């Protein structure tokens, strides 16, 4: 099929053949993605169903019955989601602009400091970070000592690094000749950033956002320790009271939530990534 010696003209043909093979590969990939994206909700629904059947099949004592009410679980799930969404929103608001600042020629010198900040945020164990912030909030007059606010602040600190790092990497990996062509045609620095750098960095930035979201779902299980609520409450009750159905319900719900968030973020990633890349 492949001729032993290729003249440049057959190279062109080879390219177009590669293109059609590419197209076939893309179709296959799309079908695979479809299976993947339909598969995940189905699996998660199956897990929830199994959990329901398992708990329903158990003889629940009074403690278990009191903990595992629909109201309780739905309320905690909602709190969990609220914490995750808030913290992700604020961390995006902070980390992406910081990532942009850290990659501009004029302000690039701040990059080590910004990365250091992000590193500290992630290096401190999440429980330690929550405890520290809880302490700071309680001793600072005017700040709420418990509840959503300190937890969200802590989650922001914890998920700052992945988004910052991915923003910086995403911006730095953009082909410099694409940028040179843009500048050479008279695009201002702002336009180059908005029209070229950010759109081309979107896939990498979104990968960071996805990581941050999943991290936040996990870390938010600690929120109940500081009055932030969330599914951690159920897990820890089950643990402390040695009630396996309660422990299992909390743990499975958190796991399903994390996977669901990852799945949704994946959909968004695919939707927002520019075509042609």
């Amino acid at each position: 099929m492949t001729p032993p010696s290729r003249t440049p003209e057959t190279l062109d043909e080879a390219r177009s053949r590669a293109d059609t093979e590419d197209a076939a590969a893309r179709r296959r990939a799309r079908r695979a993605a479809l299976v993947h994206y339909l598969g995940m909700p189905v699996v998660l629904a199956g897990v929830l169903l199994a959990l329901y059947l398992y708990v329903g099949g158990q003889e629940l004592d009074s403690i278990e019955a009191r903990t595992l009410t629909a109201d309780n679980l739905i309320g905690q799930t909602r709190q969990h989601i609220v914490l995750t969404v808030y913290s992700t929103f604020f961390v995006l608001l902070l980390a992406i602009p910081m990532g942009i600042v850290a990659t501009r020629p004029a302000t690039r010198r701040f990059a080590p400091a910004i990365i250091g900040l992000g590193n500290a945020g992630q290096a401190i164990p999440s429980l330690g970070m929550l405890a520290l912030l809880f302490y700071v909030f309680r001793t600072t007059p005017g700040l709420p000592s418990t509840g959503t606010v300190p937890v969200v602040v802590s989650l922001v600190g914890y998920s700052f690094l992945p988004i910052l790092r991915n923003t910086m990497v995403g911006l730095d990996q953009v082909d410099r000749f694409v940028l040179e062509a843009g500048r050479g045609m008279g695009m201002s620095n702002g336009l180059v950033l908005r029209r070229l750098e950010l759109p081309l960095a979107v896939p990498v930035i979104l990968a960071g956002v996805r990581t941050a979201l999943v991290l936040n779902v996990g870390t938010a299980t600690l929120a109940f320790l500081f009055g932030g609520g969330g599914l951690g409450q159920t897990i820890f009750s089950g643990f402390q009271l040695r009630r396996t159905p309660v422990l299992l319900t909390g743990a499975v719900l958190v796991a399903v939530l994390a996977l669901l968030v990852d799945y949704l973020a994946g959909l968004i990633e695919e939707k927002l990534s520019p075509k042609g890349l």
Partner: protein
Amino acid sequence: MTDRANADTAVSPAAAEGTGSSVMIDLIELTKRFPGTQDPAVDRLTLQIPRGEIVVFVGPSGCGKTTSLKMINRIIEPTSGSIVIDGEDVTTIDPNRLRRRIGYVIQQIGLFPHVTIEENVATVPKLLGWDRDRIHARVDELLDVVGLDPEIYRQRYPKELSGGQRQRVGVARALAADPPVLLMDEPFGAIDPITRTRLQNEFLRLQAELQKTIAFVTHDIDEAIKMGDRIAILREHSHIAQFATPEEILTQPANEFVEDFVGTGATLKRLKLSRVREVDYTTDALTGRIDEPREVLRRRLHESEWTAILLLDADGRPQRWLRGPDFLHDRPVTQLGLPARAFVEGHATLSDALEEMLLGSAGVAIVVDNRGSYLGILDIDDIITSIQTMRDADAEFHRAAKLVDPLDEVAE
């Protein structure tokens, strides 16, 4: 030589339409010193690029030719010196405004991978605030100009195109807002040799129509000779070793550096600059009509000093070469002798003609017009004579140059 001279005079009317000056780009004492380096990358480069011409910057790598080019649109800001374009000093104006007036083509092309071919080409018109219909029409026109069918390619993404096609889009994008000036940094450098030759030829044809003022960087002296109306051979720090027409560079290298850079085979390169129609080729070769009686043809050949007769068809297109012994065979005339081969047209270069001759078996090339009708015969001796004439003319020029100041065509 005469060909180039004609090209120069053809430029003058266009020049008269502009601001009046024949100089489009005027680089004055342009210097670039990169931070942390002792020597300047470009040291007081002073050069004038005439309106409507292609000036090629050529030189060994690291000589500063790309830096020099990129200072014209201030992608690299000059440390000192000034740039005057079309009479306006643009050294300190808003660089973005400047760049929208200058087409820019780079070797890596730099197409925007996340937008379609149409949006790529529309970049500068959009920046200039053209309305949608005008942009759409312009994109279609330009894709057509560079040989890409708009219907097929408008909505494609860069990665779906081959390297040659991408570079065509790169050229279309640079021409989008019809800038008077183009900067091209090794535009055909990353393309396979056959596609490169095709793109070079197409670009020269396009340039004959558009008459843009072009600064063109390459490291390939053959490309410089082919593309340039003038060539600036640069050595370290962008010092000009010679700034002259390709003919002069080849026949009168100003110094040893130029001689070395042009390399051996300067004579062969010169053959690329002379065209068949400029040569005194034979027009009275022995011919006959293919439908003439065999005996008439035989007698004509026999009575002449020629060793072969060229048979033409009713439209004058060469068909077959017949030698004396061929008539001994008892076959129709159309099957005797050898098929005529090695056709060249008047605009072909002597280099092309020589190649045809060497490939064809007859040792001559048949000169035809654009419809393929016979005009004459180009012999290898004609080419040798032509080379000899070039040498004599050069010697003549050298003697003249010693008596009077050399005619500085650029500074006029």
